Every structure is written in C-alpha cells, then in structure tokens.
C-alpha cells in the first residue's frame, strides 16, 4: 500500500520534472528562434529563400483544397443548425450575421489552423525529428550553422504569410457554404445575404480572424519545430513527436483563441 503510494508520488514528481524540463526547453527554443528570426530580418540574405518558397507552397496552395472543403462544410453545418433554431422564432434575418460573425471571428481561423496543424505542424516535427535521428542537426552545428535559422525561420515566415491567406479564403468559402444552405432552405437571395452580412458583421471581425491566424501560424510552427528538435533517438520517437506536435499545437491554439477572444472583447469594449 505504502509502496504503491510512494511509486505514485515518484511518478508525479517525474512528470512535474519532465514538464519543467519541457517548459524550459520550449522557452529556450523560443529564444533561439527569435534570435534567428531577428538575424534574418537584419540580414535577409541569410534567409534560405528556396526553402522559404518551398514551404510557402507547401503551407498555402497545397493545403487549399482541404481547407476549402473543411470550411465550406463548417459553414454548411453551422447554417443548418442555426437555421433550424432561428426559423422557429422567425429570426431568419439574423442568420447571415450569426454565420458571418462565427466564421470570421472563430471557426474560420480555428479550422484553418487545425488543418494546418495536421498537415504542416506534424510535417515540421517529422522532418526535423528525422534529421535529428540521422544526426543531420549535429552536422549542421558542426559546420557552424544554427539549426534554428537554417530550418525554422523559412518555415515560420512561410507559415506566417500563408496561414492568413488561407484564412481569408477559408472565411469566404465558409460564408459561401452558409449562404448555400440559406438559399436552399429559406430561399434567401444573394444580395439580401450580403446586405444582412454587411449590416451585422463589422470589418473589425474580419481583421480579428486574420490577426488570430498570425498567432496560430506562430504556434503551429513553433510547436512543430520544437517537438522535432525534442525528438528522441529511438525508432518510434518521430511518430511520438509528430503526435505530440499536433496535440500540443491544437491545445495551444485553443488556449490562444480563448485568450484572444477575451482580449478582443476587452479591446472592443474600450473602443466602444
């Protein structure tokens, strides 16, 4: 009985210690990455432009089909659910506002970020983890190249540029999906839908979603690369780091979304 209790206490202690180690490593990685990004801002030539374009292509156009599909379906589902409820109360005119606000402020950026986490965050972790297993990171360090500048900065810039653009397109197709439902279910004309959306959805909500997507892009790249650098040396380490990259990214994205939602609400309150 006492031995079990002691074992559990030891396990808890180990977990806390591990958590502390991971936190310290994440903070250290953030510092290393920030220094590398700053170096590339000061010396743009040091940025690996070919890699940057490759990752832009990887993060943007390659992820476009799945982003369009997911966001359009999210708009359709949202519109269906909202229409069923609001139609009972004759509040059909509020549907474009509900769909617009929900997609532009929350669902659009969130779904694009989750798709990007699954596609790119896991890929970053797997790529760097594999390099670590094959000791390529050690080779870079041996040659005097900072792995963060070499591997992380192009990914970060590419993601920071592409994710907001994907979010813009995702927002648009999400609203289009919502419109398809309203058009087919209650026969709402396009001009009415646009006018009601314009009445109910402020431009600031559009920019709110885009700003969120910048934050989400930073989280996805940081966590993906960090988990890649933290990959172990055994055979299943890459898979484990990939999984943890996705899970931690999604967790951090949702936490950041919560924080940002509160922050924007306070900001709008100040603004009136």
């Amino acid at each position, binding site marked *: 009985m006492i031995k079990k209790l002691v074992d559990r206490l030891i396990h808890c202690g180990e977990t806390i210690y591990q958590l502390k180690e991971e936190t310290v490593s994440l903070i250290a990685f953030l510092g290393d990455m920030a220094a590398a990004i700053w170096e590339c801002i000061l010396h743009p030539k040091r940025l690996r432009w070919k890699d940057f374009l*490759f990752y832009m*292509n990887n993060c943007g*156009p390659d992820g476009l089909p799945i982003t369009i599909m997911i966001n359009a379906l999210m708009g359709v589902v949202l519109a269906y659910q909202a229409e069923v409820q609001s139609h009972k109360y004759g509040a059909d005119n509020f549907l474009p506002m509900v769909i617009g606000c929900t997609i532009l402020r929350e669902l659009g950026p969130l779904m694009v970020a989750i798709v990007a986490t699954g596609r790119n965050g896991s890929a970053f972790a797997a790529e760097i983890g594999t390099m670590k297993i094959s000791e390529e990171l050690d080779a870079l360090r041996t040659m005097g190249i900072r792995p963060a500048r070499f591997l992380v900065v192009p990914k970060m810039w590419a993601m920071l540029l592409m994710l907001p653009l994907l979010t813009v397109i995702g927002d*648009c197709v999400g609203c289009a999906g919502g419109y398809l439902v309203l058009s087919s279910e209650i026969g709402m004309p396009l001009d009415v839908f646009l006018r009601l959306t314009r009445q109910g959805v402020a431009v600031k909500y*559009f920019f709110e979603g885009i700003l969120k997507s910048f934050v989400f892009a930073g989280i996805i790249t940081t966590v993906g690369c960090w988990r890649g650098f933290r990959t172990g040396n055994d055979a299943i380490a890459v898979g484990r780091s990939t999984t943890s990259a996705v899970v931690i990214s999604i967790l951090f994205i949702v936490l950041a979304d919560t924080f940002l939602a509160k922050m924007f609400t306070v900001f709008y309150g100040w603004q009136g």
Partner: protein
Amino acid sequence: MTDNSKFKLGLFIIIAVVVFFAGLMILGSFEQFKEKAYVTTLFSESVQGLSVGSSVKYMGVPVGTVRDISIYPNGSVIRIDMEIKLASFRGKTAAPDDVNSITVEEFQNRIAQAVDRGLRCRMELEGITGSKYIELNYDPEAPASAIDASQYAIDNPYVPSLPSLISDLRGSVTSILAKLESIDYKGISDRANDTLDTLNSRLSSPKFDETLDNANSMITSARKSIENLEKLTDADVRGQLENLTANAKVAIAAVESLAKTVEQEIKSAEFEQIADNVRAVLANAVRASRTLDETLFNVNNGVDALIELIQYIDSDPSSIIQGKKKRRIDIEDPGPAGGR
C-alpha cells in the same frame, strides 16, 4: 522549386488577395472613405443603453452611428454626436437614376428645415437586451426637451431631443405614485373603523333584537295570511265565483235578446220616407226663414222711416198741417248741412 509550383503559389496569393479585398468591400470597409456629416443632440436624462457605435436611424432607416457621448460641466446635460452617412440621402431630384448623395452643406440645410418641421431625436430600445439607438423622426406635437441649446457651443447641426418612452413612463409612474401617496389612507381607515364600530354597536343594541323579533313575527303573520288566502280560494270563493258566473251568463243572454229586439225595430221603421219629409220640411223652413229675413228688413226700414218722421214732426209740429217745408238754397254758405 519547379515552375509549376511557382505558378501555383502565385495564383494562390493572387486569389487570396482578391478575396481579401472582396471581403473588405462586402463588409463595407470602404464606407470609411465616404463622406459623412455630423449631427448633435442634447439629453437631460440618463442615456443608459446608448453607447458609441449605437445605431442612428432616420424614420427607421439606419443612417449612421453615435460617435461621441460627453457630459457638460453642469452635469445634467449629455451631448451626443452622431455620424451620418450621406450616402443614405439622395440628391436634389427624386429621379430614380439620380443616386448621387447630397453634400454636407445640402444635408445641413435639410436638417435645419426638418427641425423646423418637427424633426426630433429620441432614444428607443433596440431589443430586449436594453441597448438603445437614436431615432430621428418628425413629432411636432410632442413637447421639446427643456434644454436651451443656445447655452452650449455646438458646431454641428442641432436636433432637439424628446424624452424617451422609458422616461415618459417613469414620469407617469412617478405621478401615479405621487397621487397614490396623497391619498389619506389613515383617514379612510379611521372612518372605516368608525363605521364598523357604529355598525357593531347598532347590531349589539337591544333595539336591533327587538326589530328582529318584530320582523320574525311579521313574517309569521304574513305566512299565516297566505295560508288563509290559499284556503279561501280553495273552498268558498270558488262557489261564489261559480254563482257569479251563472248570473253573469243570464244577464248577458237578456242583453243579447234586447239588442235583437231593438235591431228589429230599427229595421222595421221607414227611415227613408221620414228623412225625405224632414228634408222637405227643412227646405220650407229655409225658405220661410229667408222670407222672414226680408220682411224683418222691410219692417226695419219702415220703423226707421217712422222714427225719422216722428223726429221731424217733433221738431216742426206745424208740418202736420202745413206739410213739409221747401229747403232754401244758400249759395254763399253752403255748409256741411247744405247738402241735405
């Protein structure tokens, strides 16, 4: 990176940028660059529910937003500055193809004219959440706000305000409560107590018991009378009524036989011949009457002549012997009697 990938990346960026600007356009971001005008109003009541960004509607049409809410130093007047989108107002002509919005000067002139015609600001509830908006509407009958706007430096067109419906309601409720408070509940209660006491004393007095006894005895007597009446009706009165009915029948039969006899007598009489005779007699009587009239007229004339003769003889008795004198004709003095 292949050329295909570069093309794909470029196309993606172009599409995303186009969608971005289309989104901005749809959401009305370019409204920021359109011309706007400002209107100011003053309220002397709480503007709870109204905030910067609240809607401003002109006869129900959304035309702008509240841009600023500030309190004047006296602490009792609140200034509301409203931003009005001029695109909501058409140009001078009402032609369908004239969609040009008005200029700021034209808008200010229109607002001034509209205020003269009774345009007023009023806070209205926007929904069930308690948020409010400002409604610009014509209400020349309603009393304007008691704020003297000339005391405040207002550089925008000023639209007088009206108390909100909630304020009106609050005023009415306050007035009702004041009236309710003015009611002398204690006095009413005291009088009611006095009345109850009086009633109680009357009820407990011996006279009331006596009255009750009298009433009971009266009811008993009435009941007995009714019973007697019922008995009377049942026996004696019925026999008397039967006798009376039989006598009445006999009397009616006698009257009927008399009537028949009279009828027969009337029928047997020669009323037509009698009538002709009577008519002839009457005609003779009429004629006799006329003759009598003429005779009387002649007699009357004769009597007049006789009276005249007597008067003449009386005035001149010798005329009986000498006869009637001839009249002398006097030319110079014809006189009123000269004609005779």
